[in-house]
């Protein structure tokens, strides 16, 4: 496999590239979904292909091909160089593109796996999902009971013209379930463990830990109860967010905002830009002093963990926010050079055909000193919101609105009445500045998000976010309440 990647790099260099790297990716995946006790889909996928980047002058080119031979890989490299040449022909002149230096390694890395997900019998997997949905449907008002699981393995061979020679095998596994209670005019859903499930780097041991069947009665009962619950009123109040919702909050309002390529304007036309100005790095107050956010691709078992990114940069931890001050960015070699930072090792492409680009790895809110129980007890009048239902944020990552599946009133330090359709809105730095309580310890969970979309054409990435419950003061809720 290295031979194919090497041929691609050689083809690019022969065609005039001054730098080239190539990934040969052989991926396989398996996914199952179950609806109301019936397996809806049982799919297995396999793909193999090569993706080559070529840098010619200050122009990038990328070419990808499925089912390569050595000759085709070489031709694909040459094509990448020709594409790079076209890149330089148009547009505003700039200083020559520089790639920040990184350690060149010859290495291997593999996700630690306890139980190979591809060897667990399919019948066992089907039985688990059927049992989970059967347990959900024991609640009569649950009309749709879904359960799903997936496992993906990415074998990558990376070669660069600088001498990188890296083989990796990365495994992502996870599962989830949800119950939808269908009312006359609306539907209500509860999910476990979080919206979309829970995923990580590892094997089937991750699925076993989720205890889908054991949690089904609670999930189903809450979904049904939501149909009768009063709607979340419009108010400005203190909000305690459950951990998986904090994870999404981090993803949308910190992770994306600190992507170096967004800050440089490279994603302006689609995903957007950022409210962050590079001149404010090290000075801007992002949130309260409790706020410490780190991008770390070395977190054991987290979904964004790997040994090396797709440029061959070793995985590392980068502080993004420290004591509430913005101190770092997510970067690759070219964006790091422009921003004057050390490359973060955060460049990933989807499969073999995705152009490698800056991505979140594990962007986590570091654990705090409190516990959820204490936070609730300390809250005189507020809301506890759990599990994401909808998310929307502006193109600068400032103005957001999130909806959750459920909320509970907090009165006099105790959880009270269930409320349906809770939403909350805010402006990113004001919201994070209002965080005054943060849990940690065993309540800090490395949540996995499987559907981060970015780029043109759109690519989907798997990202990790360690998070624990937290309280935010004076938050506007119920914006859609009438």
């Amino acid at each position, binding site marked *: 496999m290295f031979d194919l990647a090497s041929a691609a790099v050689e083809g690019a260099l022969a065609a005039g590239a001054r730098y080239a790297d190539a990934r040969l990716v052989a991926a396989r995946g398996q996914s199952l979904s179950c609806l109301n006790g019936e397996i809806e889909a049982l799919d297995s996928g*396999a793909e193999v292909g090569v993706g080559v980047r070529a840098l010619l002058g200050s122009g990038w080119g990328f070419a*990808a091909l*499925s089912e390569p031979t050595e000759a085709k890989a070489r031709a694909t490299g040459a094509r990448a160089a020709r594409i790079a040449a076209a*890149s330089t022909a148009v547009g505003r002149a700039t200083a020559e593109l520089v790639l920040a230096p990184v350690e060149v390694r010859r290495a291997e890395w593999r996700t630690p796996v306890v139980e190979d997900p591809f060897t667990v019998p399919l019948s066992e997997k089907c039985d688990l999902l059927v049992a989970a949905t059967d347990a959900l449907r024991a609640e009569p008002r649950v009309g749709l009971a879904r359960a799903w699981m997936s496992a993906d393995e990415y074998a990558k061979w990376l070669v660069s013209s600088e001498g990188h020679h890296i083989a990796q095998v990365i495994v992502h596994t996870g599962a989830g379930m949800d119950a939808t209670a269908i009312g006359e005019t609306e*539907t209500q859903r509860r999910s476990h463990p979080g919206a979309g499930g829970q995923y990580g780097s590892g094997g089937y041991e991750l699925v076993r830990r989720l205890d889908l069947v054991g949690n089904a009665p609670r999930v189903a009962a809450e979904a049904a109860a939501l149909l009768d619950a009063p709607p979340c009123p419009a108010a400005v109040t203190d909000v305690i967010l459950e951990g998986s919702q904090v994870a999404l909050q981090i993803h949308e309002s910190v992770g994306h905002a600190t992507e170096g390529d967004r800050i440089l304007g490279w994603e302006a*036309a689609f995903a957007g830009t950022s409210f962050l100005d590079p001149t404010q790095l090290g000075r801007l107050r992002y949130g309260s002093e409790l706020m410490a956010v780190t991008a770390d691709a070395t977190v054991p078992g987290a979904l964004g963990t790997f040994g090396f990114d797709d440029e061959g940069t070793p995985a590392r931890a980068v502080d993004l926010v420290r004591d509430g001050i913005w101190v770092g960015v997510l970067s690759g070699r070219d964006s790091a050079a422009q921003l004057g930072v050390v490359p973060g090792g955060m460049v990933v492409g989807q499969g073999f055909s995705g152009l490698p680009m800056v991505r979140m790895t594990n962007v986590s809110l570091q654990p705090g000193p409190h516990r959820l129980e204490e936070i609730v007890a300390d809250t005189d009048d507020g809301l506890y919101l759990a599990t994401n239902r909808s998310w929307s944020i502006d193109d600068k990552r400032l*103005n957001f609105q999130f909806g959750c599946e459920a909320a509970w009133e907090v009165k006099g330090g105790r959880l009270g009445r269930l409320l349906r359709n809770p939403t909350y809105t805010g402006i990113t730095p004001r919201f994070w500045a209002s965080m005054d309580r943060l849990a940690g310890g065993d309540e800090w969970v490395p949540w996995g998000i499987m559907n981060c979309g970015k780029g043109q054409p759109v690519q989907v990435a798997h990202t990790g976010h360690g998070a624990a419950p937290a309280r935010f003061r004076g938050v506007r809720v119920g914006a859609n309440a009438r």
Partner: protein
Amino acid sequence: MSGIDAALEPDALAEVAEHALDALSARAPAGAGVVEAQVHVGGQRHALTRFANSRIHQNLESETVAVTLKVAVGGRVAAASTTRTDRDGLADLADRALSAAEVRPVDPHWPGVAGPTADSDDDTDDRSARDEARWDEARWDEAVAAATPAERAAAVAAFLAEGTAGQDGAGYCDTLAAAVAVATTGGRRARGRWTRSTVDGIFLTAPEGAHTPAGHGHRSSVRLADVTGAAGAAGATAARLGAASRGAVDLPPGEYPVVLMPECVAEVLAFLAGGFSAKAVQEGQSFAVPGAPLFDPALTFVDDATAPGAVGLGFDSEGTARRRVELILDGRCGGLLHDRRTAARAPLDGAAPSAVTSTSTSTGTPTGTSTGHGHLASDEWGPAPAALQLSPGPASPGAPQGDDPALVAGIERGVLVTCFNYCRVLDPKTVEVTGLTRNGTFWVVDGRVAHPVTNLRFTQSFVEALGPGRVEAVGGAARLADCEWGPGLVRTPALRLSAWRFTGGAAG
């Protein structure tokens, strides 16, 4: 399969499909029951030249072939896919599909694979070879397939040339050529190819506080010349709107009359189309009740892959010819989007065909018939739209594509919105959606744009927004417009609506 161009040759892909069926036949266990199979072979060449800060910063070409095999062994169904088209790869594909099917419980809703063309129990797809050739000519442009990085770069240059001082351009020009072959053990054979090209971009200027003035332009077509020839015009639109967006002020949240430009309407229609998927209806998660007058009578909304200028294939992943489906006709809910699975369960739709009235040649779909809206993941996610169209209103002479000044002229006090951003569903039954405006939002007074406003958040039921009495005017010119599901899916004019609920702004 050899050669990059073979990936775009339907005949070459059809040969791969036959080899896949042969591999399956050689491996199917004897005595296991009826073995049915459906093979989908898709080849694609996608090239995209992306620009930001007024220079090309990402530039790519990708060529892939993927084979998806769905098998049913005694009603036990499983699917497998691969990018390998060689003998060993197809053998592995068959092995994986068969071993998975072996352990899956019997699927009580398995509809079987499509039979031969013009099977009386299935849809009628009676296209002759001459029809296929005409279809191919309408959907395929060799220039797109052969487009070079230099041609895409030239389109980018034409777009950027329209920017004025202080404006930075960002966007892309892409060319997509694809071919598909479908084969089933029931004798269905379908093959075809299609192309699409797009130029899409914005011009931004320096931020004004939390607001960045920007404007958007877009052109999509089956044909390269339509796009490269219009790249400058798209850039001019983006530059004009971007310049007009400077000096934006905040607008208080509230309900206002709006003019929604085609990109906004495309977003609304794409979300609504999800409610017309038969799976959503059968699961009780849709607003759609065939015949119900939920929408303004001014609206006629169809999914019609056979219409002139539609992008994409004339058949779906199951080899079923795509039918015209009238989703909304004169304001009433019409037909639903079906694949073979949902069609087999169609009595659960809750309405007889006679409930749908139509003056068009297509009178809706008889119960139990696929409309050709299956895709490779439709078992789990349901049938999906293929080519959505909102019928335009009376023509406005001289109106630019999709832009209709007459719509703005009808607003006393309201908002002109050019694009939506990051829309997400809050409730699928009402299609209540939250999102934001982007790339140019303007306050209109007495029929004229008064000044730009900063981006607004909305929370609005799309069903309610297009309800009876709510559509004041339909633009006279329709064009392919971008939406969150990508370019080429929706052809629409602009709309003027009596009310749209903005729930927040830059201040939160």
